[in-house]
């Protein structure tokens, strides 16, 4: 029996950056908001003595409990998807703050090219440049239109950064100066400059100094403690939903954050969402939380899954190309992006690589997006090439030069010798959507409550492998310039395909935005075209993946969504943005 609760103004799935930002902006305007978060209550006091590599980096204690719910995965339309069984293959957020508590904090903006990728590509190279089966589209918004929301997010999160010599226009500088410069960062920057590139510090949500954001939230200066990514910050020095937007929303007195509330359906009457149905994971009892506005901010996978489970919108069909929900799954994948690159071994130089922070490092944008001319390349989009000093912990860092055995005497000697004598450079590359990469409900596997799991189908195209190889080649060039004695380079063989690893937490699509309902599920305020009081916020709305970490862009669009919802309330309903074209649903 489902118990119906008292109606509120807005109910939100998820307490990560996306849900937290919307909650803060709505409650500041006096709206009563309930957040339903499937995970437990979590915050700074849980993070104080967290410097435990086994528990958090090998056993992934902060990540989604896969025993309750996971994804299934396949890398081709005729293959059988199998479940992702262990967190080594899926680092997904859960609990209060979601993935925003254990992120690194690398805080990029995306490029003007990204938001108008279709038009700008056609304009520069002609439509025939777009590879067969690539389903890129304009987002329905320009960089200039999004810029104020970027600025808003960067100020809320207190991003520490250095001006990017090749970066897009900014209305204001970063709210905080860049993080410290270490000897290895200098080595990378000097080598890149010598090669004619334009290095700059990674923009960081680890604070270079204590900072109070416009909502009055204090974030402390970073201690450079080297337990950052995959960990929460015990010093309140990493910008996260819990130290910023959730705290702001709490202070208004208009937020109720309900933990252990696993949302299973959007309640609706076909045209309007009426609330969310959830199971209290402590009691097993089900509730319906009615609301005037319903917001899905449960990350890409559950945003898509909840739409499919609730029969909202038309599911995407890869055979016909029709339908929209589930379309354009993209991401950063470990065998073609970010976890491949060039590793340099230095025989006579020891570095303090065991020190670091989640977002300490430098990068170059010379190959990002369409910064480099692609006339003679057989791929579109590009890569940023970065060196980062995260704090090399001893279980995960046993790198030895290629050809060295991976266990036994010679391994032990070399892994210990080189522990402080190796550096890694990696390209983070864009990934363009294709017609065979999408999400739907799995026909076989179910979650702990008996609901079908989400099935992810992902296939690489040739251009993805070529882009990855081009990126690795630049890494190699810089590493050689840095003076490494041995430079080992990762291969990207011709048969490289999706490896069922959901490790980066940079995933996109499922309820994408666009100019109208003919090619999108939501408008640029994340409002569903066909259900105007339902907003689907987060990376689910991104039609493709750029070559940068996504959270600043997720944050910017969440601020825009919140503005749209507040407008929806004040104008008493309706679409807050009309479709540009009127081609009708495909």
């Amino acid at each position, binding site marked *: 029996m489902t118990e119906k609760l008292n109606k509120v103004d807005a109910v939100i799935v998820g307490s990560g950056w996306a849900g937290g930002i919307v909650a803060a902006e709505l409650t500041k305007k006096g709206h009563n908001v309930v957040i339903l978060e499937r995970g437990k209550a979590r915050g700074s006091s849980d993070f104080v*003595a967290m410097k435990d590599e086994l528990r958090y980096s090998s056993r992934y204690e902060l990540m989604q409990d896969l*025993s309750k719910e996971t994804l299934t995965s396949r890398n081709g339309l005729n293959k059988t998807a199998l479940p992702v*069984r262990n*967190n080594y293959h899926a680092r997904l957020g859960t609990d209060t703050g979601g993935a925003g508590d254990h992120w690194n904090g690398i805080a990029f903006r995306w490029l003007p090219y990204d938001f108008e990728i279709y038009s700008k590509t056609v304009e520069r190279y002609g439509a025939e440049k777009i590879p067969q089966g690539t389903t890129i589209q304009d987002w329905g918004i320009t960089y200039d239109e999004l810029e104020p929301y970027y600025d808003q997010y960067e100020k809320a999160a207190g991003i520490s950064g250095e001006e990017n010599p090749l970066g897009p226009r900014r209305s204001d500088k970063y709210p905080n100066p860049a993080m410290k410069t270490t000897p290895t960062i200098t080595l990378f920057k000097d080598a890149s400059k010598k090669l004619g590139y334009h290095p700059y510090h990674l923009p960081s949500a680890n604070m270079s100094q204590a900072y109070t954001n416009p909502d009055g939230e204090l974030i402390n200066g970073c*201690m450079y403690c080297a337990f950052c990514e995959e960990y929460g910050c015990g*010093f309140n020095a990493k910008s996260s939903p819990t130290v910023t937007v959730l705290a702001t929303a709490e202070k208004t007195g208009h937020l109720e954050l309900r933990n252990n509330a696993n949302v299973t359906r959007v309640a609706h009457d076909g045209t309007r969402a009426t609330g969310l149905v959830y199971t209290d994971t402590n009691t097993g009892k089900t509730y319906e939380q009615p609301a005037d506005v319903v917001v899905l901010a449960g990350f890409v996978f559950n945003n898509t899954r909840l739409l499919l489970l609730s029969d909202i919108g038309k599911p995407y069909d890869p055979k016909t190309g029709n339908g929209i929900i589930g379309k354009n799954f993209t991401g950063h994948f470990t065998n073609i992006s970010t976890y491949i690159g060039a590793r340099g071994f230095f025989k006579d130089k020891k570095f303090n690589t065991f020190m670091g922070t989640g977002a300490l490092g430098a990068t170059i944008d010379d190959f990002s997006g369409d910064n480099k001319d692609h006339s003679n390349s057989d791929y579109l989009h590009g890569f940023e090439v970065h060196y980062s000093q995260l704090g090399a912990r001893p*279980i995960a860092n046993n790198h030895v*030069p290629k050809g060295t055995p991976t266990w036994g005497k010679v391994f032990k000697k070399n892994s210990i010798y080189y522990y402080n004598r190796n550096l890694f450079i990696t390209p983070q590359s864009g990934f363009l959507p294709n017609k065979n990469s999408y999400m739907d409900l799995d026909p076989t596997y*179910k979650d702990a409550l008996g609901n079908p799991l989400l099935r992810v189908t992902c296939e690489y195209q040739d251009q993805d492998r070529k882009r990855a190889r081009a990126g690795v080649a630049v890494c190699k060039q810089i590493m050689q310039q840095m003076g490494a004695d041995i430079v080992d380079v990762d291969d990207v063989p011709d048969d490289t395909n999706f490896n069922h690893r959901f490790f980066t937490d940079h995933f996109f699509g499922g309820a994408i935005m666009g100019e109208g309902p003919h090619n999108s599920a939501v408008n640029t305020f994340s409002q569903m075209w066909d259900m105007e009081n339902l907003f689907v916020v987060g990376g689910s709305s991104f039609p493709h993946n750029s070559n940068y970490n996504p959270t600043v862009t997720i944050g910017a669009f969440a601020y825009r969504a919140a503005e749209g919802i507040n407008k929806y309330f004040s104008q008493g309903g309706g679409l807050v943005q009309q479709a540009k074209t009127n081609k009708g649903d495909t």
Partner: protein
Amino acid sequence: MTDDTDSNGTVVDDPTRRNFIKATSRVAGGSVGGALLGGVFVGQAAQAKPNEPKEQKQPETPNFQEARQFFTRTDDFEVLKAATECVFPEDDNGPGAVGLNVPYFIDKQLAGLWGVNGQDYRAGPFQPQASQDPGHVQPHPEQSAMNRGAIFLNGLRKLNEVSEKRFGKRFESANEEQQIQILQAFENDDIDMVGVAASDFFTLLRQTTLEGAYSDPLYGGNKNMQGWKMKEYPGAQASYSAVIEQDEFVKLEPISLTDYQG
């Protein structure tokens, strides 16, 4: 290639060089942890006690943690000891897996949440063959119906079975060369195991051995933080803020969570 590398380009022993490195890698400034905490986080800093590492003397009372929670048969545990020592042997850097108490670490891990795959998706149908399917360029990982404890038990017994068949003696009694040869056969999937690929068992064994060597000593391995000392890894430091910009290598006494949490 300089003459201190072998044909694989990897470093081989060179005691002169190691002494040289030792001599040049003294801490600059000496007291890293204490000075830089500068009162910002008094509570946490006070807990960290970075300059007072606990006495590292061998305890005179017995170590009550050195008993088995998971393995019931001594035989299995003996195979585990021998196999982990092969993966991570004692050498002039310091102790190997046995000296670091890795077998007890693994025993405790298998007795807990991780050993029963408590945070993993465990619903069927299981397709253990999918990780080996040659038609899959990128095979599906970890599709075995067995949990990690069962995989370890089966794997260790199989190691022993192969040893008895090939060499007529138990695995732990085989000589080093024979043990290595058997482990290589597992690593290369030249052995058939039921319900899990031999290479998957080997990967688990290797990974867990490294975890036991380098995890915080609270889990029963990394005895006396000797795993960390070999790598000059200083453990749970509260902050590197004051030293992270300097060029010289910084050597610090390691801090365990026992010290950090105070």
